[in-house]
C-alpha cells in the first residue's frame, strides 16, 4: 500500500515538472525505472512504441501502463489521476486569471507573438512524425525514402482537400491508413 502511495507521489511530481507535453515525461520515467523496480528499461521501450501508436496522450498511456503492471487496475487509475492532477490545478488557476486579463493589451500582444511561433512549433512536431513514418535509416537520402509510405501520404493529403471528403471525420483517414498498411505490408 505504501509503495502505491510512493508511485502516486512520483507521478504527481512528473505531472508537475514535465513541461511541454509529448515525450517530456520520458526523462522522469527513465529516472523512475532506475530508482524503483516497477518496470524494466525494455518494458519502457515497448511502452513508448505502444504509446506512440495507440490513441491518447503518451504521458497518460505510460502512467496507466506502469501503474497497471505494478499494482493492477487500481494502480493504473491512481497513477493516471496523480499525473493529471497538478496540471488540472495549475490550468484552472491560469484559466481564471485569463478570463480577467484576456482583454489586457499586454496579454493580447503576447498572444499575437506566440500564435505564429506555435504554428512553427506544430510544423516542427509534424516534421518529426514524418521522419519516422515516411523515411527509414539509410546511408543516402534517396535510399532512405519509404516510397510506399510517401505515395500513400500524398494520396491521403489530396483526398483531404477534395470538396466532398473535406468534412469527413479524421478517424476515416486513420482507418484508411490502417487498412492500406495491412494490404501493402508496410
Amino acid at each position, binding site marked *: 500500500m505504501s509503495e502505491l502511495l510512493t508511485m502516486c507521489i512520483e507521478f504527481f511530481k512528473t505531472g508537475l515538472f514535465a513541461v511541454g507535453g509529448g515525450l517530456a*515525461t520520458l526523462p522522469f520515467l527513465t529516472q523512475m525505472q532506475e530508482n524503483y523496480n516497477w518496470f524494466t528499461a525494455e518494458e519502457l521501450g515497448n511502452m513508448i512504441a505502444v504509446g506512440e501508436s495507440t490513441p491518447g*496522450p503518451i504521458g*497518460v498511456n505510460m502512467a496507466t501502463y506502469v501503474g497497471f503492471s505494478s499494482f493492477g487496475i487500481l494502480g493504473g487509475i491512481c497513477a*493516471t489521476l496523480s499525473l493529471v492532477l497538478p496540471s488540472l490545478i495549475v490550468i484552472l488557476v491560469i484559466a481564471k486569471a485569463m478570463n480577467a486579463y484576456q482583454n489586457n493589451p499586454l496579454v493580447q500582444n503576447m498572444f499575437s*507573438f*506566440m500564435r505564429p511561433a506555435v504554428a512553427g512549433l506544430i510544423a516542427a512536431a509534424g516534421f518529426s512524425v*514524418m521522419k519516422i513514418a515516411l523515411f527509414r535509416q539509410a546511408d543516402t537520402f534517396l535510399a532512405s525514402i519509404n516510397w510506399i509510405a510517401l505515395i500513400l*501520404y500524398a494520396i491521403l493529403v489530396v483526398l483531404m482537400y477534395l470538396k466532398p471528403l473535406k468534412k469527413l471525420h479524421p478517424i476515416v483517414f486513420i482507418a484508411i491508413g490502417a*487498412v492500406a498498411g495491412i494490404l501493402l505490408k*508496410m
Partner: protein
Amino acid sequence: MKVLFDLFRAFFTIGALTFGGGYAMLPMLEREIVTKRNWATSEELLNYFAIGQCTPGIIAVNTATFVGYKVKGVIGGTVATLGVVAPSMVIITLIAMVLENFMDIVWVQNAFAGIRVAVCALITVSVVKLFKSNVKQHWHIALAIIAFVVVALLKLSPVYVVVACAVLSFIFGKKVQKA
C-alpha cells in the same frame, strides 16, 4: 448537466481517436471543439497550446481543462480532463494485459505503419490551415520559421520559444500595434 455530458463525450472522442498525443490532437480538436460545437475559436486553441508549452503537464490535458473551464467552470474543466484520459486508461489497461504478444503480430505492426502515415497527412492539413489563419505578416513568417528551426533542427525545448515570444512582445509590442 447536459453540457457536462457533452463535454465528457467530446473529450472522450478526442482522447480515443488521437494517435501520437500532443499536437496530433489538433485536427480532432479543431473538428470537435471549433467546427462542431463552437466552444472555442481557432485562435483560442493556439493560445491554449502556447500556454500548454510553458506550463506543467500534458498538452492534451491542459487544453481539455481550458476548454472545459471556459464552457462550465471548474466542474467543466474536471469533467473534460477525465474525458480525455478515460479512453487511454481503458485501452492501455487492455493492451498491458496482452502486451507480450501484441506488438509481435505482423499485421498489427503493418496497420500502425499505415496509421502513422495517415497521422502525418492529417497534421499537414492542420498545419497548412494554421499558417493560413495565423501567419499573415512578414514578422509572423519570421517567427514561425525561427520556432521551427529552433525545435526541429536545433532540438531545443519549445519552452524557450514561448518564453522568448513573451519577452519580445513586451519589447516590440507597441511598435507592432501601431504598424
